[in-house]
């Protein structure tokens, strides 16, 4: 624990089993089970109220589950107070101690562990250097920008060589540009040190770009946990499908307008495959093609330039609006008001139950354009 090297300690394994937690009548967690492998960065993603922060706080020791167990490296820690759990946490904002300089903040955990003043300073300097703030060591939190403060917070959490690193939406309070920079920095640092990390966020872009695995949560349970690719391509439920990335939801009868799907796939949670009749089809924007056509099946309503791609909103006959992503070169010349023919690309189409669950599907993406419920 008092090592001055930067060579990584093997990360810890974390196992949360069947965690439940209610606040009065509100069920924050309903039997959550999650495992983190050593050195892994797992992101917990979900809309507000889904329980992700509760899970994190239970792991950190700031809250206790009503039932279920939490094990770190095979040892049950539910009874261990937060101060003794040896985990580093980065909070959403303003968690730096205002009466201490950056250096003293970073050294605080080491001070609690009774390191000598010289050793503390050395290690703090080392970490501040790692996050690129060596020059700001003597500055106070109120003199630092939001991004700088979070970097100091990160350094502070890592200074104690924690078994687990916990991040509670650390980037949500920051500007977009700073957020992107910090994302990379956090990921790089985490990989270099090999610290097992749990990262909570409601921003799916963040989760998908940073994590080894992403767990999508809803209403206190884990809907699916998989690598980002897997989640995108093979969502387990309609909720996950629509939460991660953008998804068009097309009623089965309207689907016929678009031609014959290459294949129909049920969602991996057991939702039915078979005929699309009476069900909704879920298609990604890149799963649709369009061409200008005077008597097509839809009218373009908006056009959004996204760089290499252009996203076009098309209102189909049948009054369903879909988003179609087309390479900008191909989409040149197509403007709002134009009549187009939308067809399915050569990809499997996912089937989901009819829109009874539509209200729950809140695609939380940062990209413009949403599939209207």
């Amino acid at each position, binding site marked *: 624990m008092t090592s001055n090297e930067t060579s990584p300690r093997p990360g810890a394994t974390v196992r949360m089993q069947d965690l439940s937690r209610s606040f009065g009548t509100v069920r924050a967690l309903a039997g959550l089970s999650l495992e983190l492998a050593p050195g892994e960065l797992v992101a917990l993603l979900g809309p507000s109220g889904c329980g992700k922060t509760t899970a994190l706080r239970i792991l950190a020791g700031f809250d206790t589950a009503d039932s279920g167990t939490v094990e770190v490296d095979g040892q049950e820690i539910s009874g261990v107070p937060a*101060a*003794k759990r040896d985990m580093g946490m980065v*909070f*959403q904002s303003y*968690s730096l101690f205002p*009466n*201490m300089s950056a250096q003293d903040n970073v050294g605080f955990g080491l001070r609690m562990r009774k390191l000598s003043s010289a050793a503390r300073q050395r290690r703090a300097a080392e970490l501040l250097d790692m996050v690129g703030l060596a020059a700001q060591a003597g500055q106070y939190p*109120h003199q630092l920008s939001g991004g700088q403060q979070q970097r100091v917070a990160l350094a502070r959490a890592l200074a*104690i060589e924690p078994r687990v690193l916990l991040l509670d939406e650390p980037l949500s309070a920051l500007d977009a540009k700073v957020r992107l920079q910090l994302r990379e920095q956090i990921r790089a640092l985490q990989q270099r040190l090999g610290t097992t990390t749990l990262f909570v966020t409601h921003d799916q872009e963040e989760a998908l770009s940073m994590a080894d695995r992403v767990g999508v949560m809803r209403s206190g349970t884990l809907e699916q946990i998989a690598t980002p690719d897997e989640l995108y391509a093979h969502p387990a439920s309609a909720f996950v499908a629509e939460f991660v990335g953008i998804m068009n939801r097309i009623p089965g009868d309207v689907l016929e307008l678009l031609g014959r799907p290459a294949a129909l796939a049920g969602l991996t949670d057991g939702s039915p495959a078979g005929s699309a009749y009476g069900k909704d089809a879920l298609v990604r924007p890149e799963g649709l093609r369009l061409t200008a056509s005077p008597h097509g099946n839809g009218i373009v309503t908006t056009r959004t330039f996204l760089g290499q791609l252009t996203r076009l909103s098309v209102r189909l006959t049948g009054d369903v609006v879909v988003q179609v992503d087309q390479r900008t070169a191909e989409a040149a010349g197509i403007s709002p008001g134009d009549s187009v023919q939308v067809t399915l690309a050569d990809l499997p189409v996912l089937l989901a139950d009819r829109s009874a669950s539509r209200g729950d599907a809140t695609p939380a993406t940062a990209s413009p354009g949403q599939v209207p419920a």
Partner: protein
Amino acid sequence: MAVDTTTVPGATQAPGAGRSWPARLRALRRWAGLIPFGVYMFLGLGLPAIAVAIGAFQNSSGGGFTLSNVRAATHGIYRQGFETSLEVSVVTAIVPGIVGFLVAYAIFTARRGNLLRRVVITASGVFANFGGVPLAFLFIATLGSTGLVTGWLTAIGLNPYDHGFDLYTFSGIVIVYMYFQIPLMVLIMLPALEGLRPAWREAAQNLGASSWQFWRHIGGPVLFPSFLGCVMLLFGSALSAYATAEALTSGSIALTPIQIGSFLNGNVLAGQQNIGKALGLGLVVIIAIAMVIYTLAQRRASRWLR
């Protein structure tokens, strides 16, 4: 009040910048809006204050410069007055400071909207505005020689008057002053306590600090400026209090404000008028020092507790 209608509000004119006459004139016109306030405060506050300051060094009979007033003010009964006043003020700044802090701490962990918390806050707001005459009478009825609590205590054999307590002297004044000092402390410390972000507590815990360590390294230092500032406020408040002491003791206690008042009541030998002003000046100087400390402390507090 005449407001300049020819300039658009927020027009970018650096005050006093540029050597040109029009610019300077414009800046002057902008300051003109403060004239009514400035004049009033000068006449109502500045002038009297200057009169006191000057009078402190003037011979009561002749009007020539003299230090005799100041000398008299710092010796004998007036010196005693200062000492007693300072003692009272220090005690009724620190003790209510601590008690008030504890009360604030006792309720700040309750959620907002909690009934107990709202009661305490409202009550504090009301009691902090107490003072003066009503308060004195309240306590006469409570701890006077025939007061209610005196009676209770006598019944259990502990008549406070037999043990050196007297409502109309130092000990009594202290007890009475606490009545408005404690709520003041509560009202000021509560927001400061709430300025303590929960994230700090949790971060400290997370890094291995015990409760005591948190308060020693973070909570204490961060709250200290607010605490100090408030204590200064309490100190100044107690030092300048006149009404309560006067209503309570009819001027028989040796406190500086009372003594100053006695110069106006004519209870004083002729030819000694200006000693009162010297006393006043002394009071002002002491309070001013306290308020400077207060201002500095507040500035530090607001920086950290933002």
